[in-house]
């Protein structure tokens, strides 16, 4: 019997599976997400830092180095105020407690995106490959915080201190201090803009991070080391991205949050 005839029923059944596939896929328009990503990439790097702000950023980096070596209290205060973003306070001084390079990420309780959204406002990157976080965590620290975890994969290397490709953390509340970052010598801090929001990109070395309890007291006895990080404020959310990624890529991912 010829192949075509022999397999006719099987071929018909296989084609019928297409309807199942379509039903599972549903309707979705990818064009907005694709064009937004392309537009973000096409934006010249210079636009990420406004000219006036760029001069400030250069001065800032110089100030940080000076502050680190001279440890002048007044200069340190000026720098830290400038770097503070939302619920994140950046300190140019030694961390207050022991630091563990392998500390647990302390992201809170594992949850789902839907459950997290039921408790606090959550935005998710629409950039390619980041629309679906592999893990979602919730913590009541501050006004409530959500962490989106993306595992390492080709093109998204595992960060040394987290072991994951990208960590996106979102904290509610604009002024209540709940995250403290302590910079060490050699760490570079650049001011950037994410769409129209002010942010800081920290790179070039290790810094440490401590969390506060809702009453303002520190809840961790040891901090953890951090690599490259981008912090910015969008409305009531303070958003922090952490991973072994370049500034431009982190900004592009941050700009796609929706």
């Amino acid at each position, binding site marked *: 019997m010829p*192949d075509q005839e*022999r*397999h006719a029923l*099987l*071929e018909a*059944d*296989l*084609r*019928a*599976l*297409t*309807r*199942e*596939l*379509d*039903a*599972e*896929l549903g309707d*979705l*328009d*990818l*064009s*907005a*997400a*694709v*064009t937004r*990503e*392309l*537009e973000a990439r*096409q934006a010249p790097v210079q636009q990420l830092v406004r000219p006036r702000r760029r001069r400030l950023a250069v001065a800032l980096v110089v100030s940080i180095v000076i502050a680190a070596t001279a440890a002048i209290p007044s200069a340190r205060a000026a720098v830290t105020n400038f770097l503070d973003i939302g619920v994140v306070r950046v300190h140019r001084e030694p961390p207050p407690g022991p630091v563990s390079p392998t500390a647990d990420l302390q992201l809170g309780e594992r949850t789902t995106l839907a459950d997290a959204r039921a408790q606090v406002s959550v935005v998710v990157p629409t950039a*390619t*490959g980041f*629309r*679906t976080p592999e893990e979602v965590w919730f913590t009541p620290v501050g006004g409530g915080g959500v962490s989106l975890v993306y595992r390492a*994969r*080709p093109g998204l290397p595992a960060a040394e201190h987290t072991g994951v490709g990208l960590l996106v953390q979102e904290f509610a509340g604009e002024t209540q201090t709940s995250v403290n970052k302590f910079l060490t010598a050699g760490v570079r801090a650049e001011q950037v803009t994410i769409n129209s929001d002010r942010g800081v990109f920290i790179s070039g070395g290790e810094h440490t991070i401590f969390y506060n309890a809702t009453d303002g007291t520190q809840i961790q006895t040891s901090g953890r080391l951090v690599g490259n990080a981008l912090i910015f404020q969008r409305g009531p959310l303070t958003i922090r991205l952490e991973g072994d990624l370049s500034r431009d890529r982190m900004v592009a991912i941050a700009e796609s949050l929706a």
Partner: protein
Amino acid sequence: MEGSVTDDAELIERAKRGDVDAYGELVRRYQHDARRTAAAIAGVAVADDAAQEAFVRAYDFLHRFRPGAPFRPWLLTVVANVARNHRRSTNRWTRTLRQSRERGGQPLAARSAEDEALARERGGNLRTALEALPVRYRDVVSCRYLLDLSEEETARTLGLARGTVKSRLSRALDRLERQLNREVDRA
């Protein structure tokens, strides 16, 4: 839905000059095929991510696209490559198929309860058999039947010779038949 070659060519030229909106129109035109291709190769769970990534990658490679050639098979080649990378890194195809099978799949059409039960069982068995196929056979079957691509398009999409597509299809269908017959004998 296949857009006319002329329209596509104009949009592609504009996109090459940096017109992102023109490229957005190409995305709208071919996203259904792209998502289907990604789903067939890497699984429904990662289809949208893979399709979106493929569109961005295709934009980067537009300068390599031969003017006048049909856009769809060229695009689907990019989608297939991205989807295969996703499959390698996540191995979600198996999980997705299994989950879908456990849900019993969607009803194929209005039928009697008995017909529907039989169809669902046959569909479930077929999915199981498809899942068990080696990747080289599964990709060809997916492109040819789930995506309804011609042999020529399947060959272009997967970067294979047409003869290879033909022979792999034949072997794949034989394997599926044998597997399904085993399922029937077991029942």
